[in-house]
């Protein structure tokens, strides 16, 4: 007998996602991923000035404001063949890396930890033992018995006062929860602390971007961050020192708290390196441009097929024609007109809503494919590409963790593997941030203070694509410019790749594929489904944000 479970909406994600699973004998046998929000925001870009696109697209998504700005500006620069000065690349790289650090910290602690951490169990912990465990993991100074005791007392007061609030909907005491009380307490304490460090990363982005959320410092051809080491109003020695301090503190948090917590938690959930593989074709684009033409990068991109590293095909530049030509988006099962797959430059966004038809159209998400194949994007793809190209830091982190946890590279194709890869990526991003600050200072020291190549939009028709390896994976913005205006605009975002519905050949997207075979102990509490879906860090790219007080006893005072 199969049982159908619908989870609508999936909580602790961005956007509105519905997941349907068919459970047979305690295991998922079939799954559907359905984005429940109209995503036609590209349409408002048509007819606008390409120079302004980056500013609008920051509002595409709730969280990933910076990444859309970066992709968009690169799309225009690619279309017009504009070079970007080294200082501007370094400044963008620092913002990209710090945004990633912030994003990964928030995902680990605030969006996914509660799938693995039993908050209520932390009340039973011995704070002294918790401190001893935490201190054995790293020398971070915040792990004292006093600190853990204070968090436990506060938690107790909340629970006794019936104020579990955000935690009230958690699956506490679920048989799939495996951490000892002390590890739960460590995780809860760091969950609260993590907010301070995600904030420091946000401040670092703001030092360069002028504002965060929604950076203000991009221009086609560079950045608008004036550089003058002696001037108070520009990027100067004082600002750089402040930036270095913020980024050093976040690096320490990532490397001495987040990463050790991740490894500690994973060691109690090794079985989760077996579930949730799904689509094992991976795509990553190269990131952290180190020349002015986007042809030299710090981290490799590439494709991997069937989870086999031997199939790795590197992508070395953002001008890779096989990559640019190979991407299409299908709408066979998405609520848009038509059935054929189109290249993003020809992409259309014409809604055709039918309601949920499991064999017909059932999602607002399109189905991106590479040469007709479903691909998984995200930290596992980038980590494997870096590993395949012999990146020493990534290799060491993966090999060390493999030795510690008894896992291999193939275990990255899993629910826990995705969390692990994101931790590795955060570790790398934290170091790269400081690395690019050094490179920026050194370049300025050589006397180069250029930060933009001012660009006029010419008349005529131009097509461009801006690739960016964002925290959730490969992002691309596609622009067609005609007569100095935007003629067409499409964003193919990481969550579209991963959350995509079946395509015209019936191939499921990564969310749909990864759930098949997952255990479900209690269908009424489908914690295992949430674990696997959350491991992707879903971000259903259109950020509606309405407060919805659906209770009965609401004190509501109408004021206007």
């Amino acid at each position: 007998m199969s049982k159908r479970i619908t989870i609508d909406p999936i909580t602790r994600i961005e956007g509105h996602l519905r997941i349907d699973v068919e459970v047979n004998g305690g295991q998922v046998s079939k799954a559907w991923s359905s984005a429940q929000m109209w995503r036609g925001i590209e349409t408002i870009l048509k007819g606008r000035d390409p120079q302004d696109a980056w500013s609008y697209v920051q509002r595409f998504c709730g969280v990933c404001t910076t990444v859309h700005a970066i992709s968009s500006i690169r799309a225009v620069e690619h279309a017009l063949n504009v070079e970007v000065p080294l200082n501007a690349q370094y400044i963008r790289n620092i913002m990209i890396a710090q945004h990633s650090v912030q994003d990964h910290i928030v995902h680990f602690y605030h969006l996914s930890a509660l799938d693995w951490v039993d908050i209520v169990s932390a009340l039973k912990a011995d704070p002294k033992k918790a401190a001893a465990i935490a201190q054995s993991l790293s020398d971070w100074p915040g792990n004292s018995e006093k600190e853990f005791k204070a968090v436990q007392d506060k938690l107790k007061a909340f629970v006794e006062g019936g104020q579990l609030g955000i935690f009230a909907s958690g699956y506490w005491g679920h048989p799939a929860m495996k951490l000892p009380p002390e590890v739960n307490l460590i995780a809860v304490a760091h969950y609260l602390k993590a907010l301070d460090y995600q904030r420091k990363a946000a401040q670092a982005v703001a030092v360069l971007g002028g504002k965060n959320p929604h950076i203000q410092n991009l221009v086609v051809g560079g950045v608008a961050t004036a550089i003058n080491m002696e001037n108070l109003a520009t990027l100067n020695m004082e600002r750089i020192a402040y930036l270095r301090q913020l980024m050093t503190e976040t690096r320490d948090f990532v490397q001495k708290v987040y990463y050790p917590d991740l490894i500690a938690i994973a060691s109690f959930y090794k079985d989760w390196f077996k579930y949730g593989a799904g689509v094992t074709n991976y795509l990553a684009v190269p990131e952290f441009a180190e020349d002015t033409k986007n042809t030299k990068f710090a981290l490799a991109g590439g494709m991997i097929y069937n989870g086999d590293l031997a199939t790795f095909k590197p992508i070395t530049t953002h001008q890779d024609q096989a990559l640019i030509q190979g991407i299409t988006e299908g709408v066979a099962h998405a609520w848009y007109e038509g059935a054929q797959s189109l290249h993003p430059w020809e992409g259309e966004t014409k809604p055709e809503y039918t309601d949920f038809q499991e064999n017909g159209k059932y999602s607002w998400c399109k189905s991106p494919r590479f040469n007709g194949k479903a691909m998984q994007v995200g930290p596992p793809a980038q980590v494997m590409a870096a590993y395949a190209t012999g990146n020493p830091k990534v290799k060491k982190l993966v090999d060390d963790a493999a030795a510690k946890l008894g896992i291999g590279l193939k275990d990255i194709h899993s629910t826990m593997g995705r969390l692990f890869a994101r931790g590795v990526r955060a570790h790398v991003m934290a170091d790269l941030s400081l690395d690019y600050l050094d490179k920026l200072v050194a370049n300025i020291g050589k006397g180069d203070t250029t930060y933009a190549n001012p660009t006029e939009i010419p008349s005529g028709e131009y097509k461009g694509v801006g690739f960016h390896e964002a925290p959730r994976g490969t992002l691309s913005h596609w622009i067609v410019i005609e007569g100095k205006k935007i003629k067409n605009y499409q964003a193919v975002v990481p969550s579209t790749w991963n959350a995509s519905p079946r395509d015209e050949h019936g191939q499921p997207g990564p969310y749909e594929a990864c759930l098949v075979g997952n255990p479900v102990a209690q269908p009424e509490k489908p914690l295992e489904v949430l674990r696997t879906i959350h491991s992707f860090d879903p971000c259903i790219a259109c950020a509606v944000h309405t407060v919805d007080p659906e209770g009965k006893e609401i004190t509501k005072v109408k004021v206007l």
Partner: protein
Amino acid sequence: MRTLIFGAGNLILSDEGFGVHVVKYLEDNYTFPEEVELFDGGTLGIMVTHKIEEAERVYIVDTLDTAGEPGDVFRYEKEDIMLNRLPVKLSPHQIGIQEMLYISEMRGGCPDAISLLGVIPKSFDPGNELSPSLNEKLPQVARLLVEELRGMGYEIGEKQSSALN
């Protein structure tokens, strides 16, 4: 005392951006002393918790899904949120304003005075303009905030160029 006006919402989904429109309207039409900060919080929720924690008095402006007509504005105070009178399952984000306030409270950083002004939206269609019924409410909500801030002793000027509609 630092007072924060926190505008939440998505600026390119018409009425969803109401909170941000209010912040922009205030910036365009009034002058504020240094202790009052206007903040375009977008839809980041938990990632901007620190803005709330840095203030002593907070006004959040957002859209609201409840019974009533588009353009109706409702007001909630901190206790409505903390005592679960404004339930947790709130925004499609699920890490929205409310969750952010809970975490702040648990960290001991949440200010005592928080008010939420919520407006019922009409349209979430792509677009960077408000629907007429909400556009009409915009100056009224701004005026309400300004009057309240003046009542607290802040000196708030009106910009010359603006025709307050």
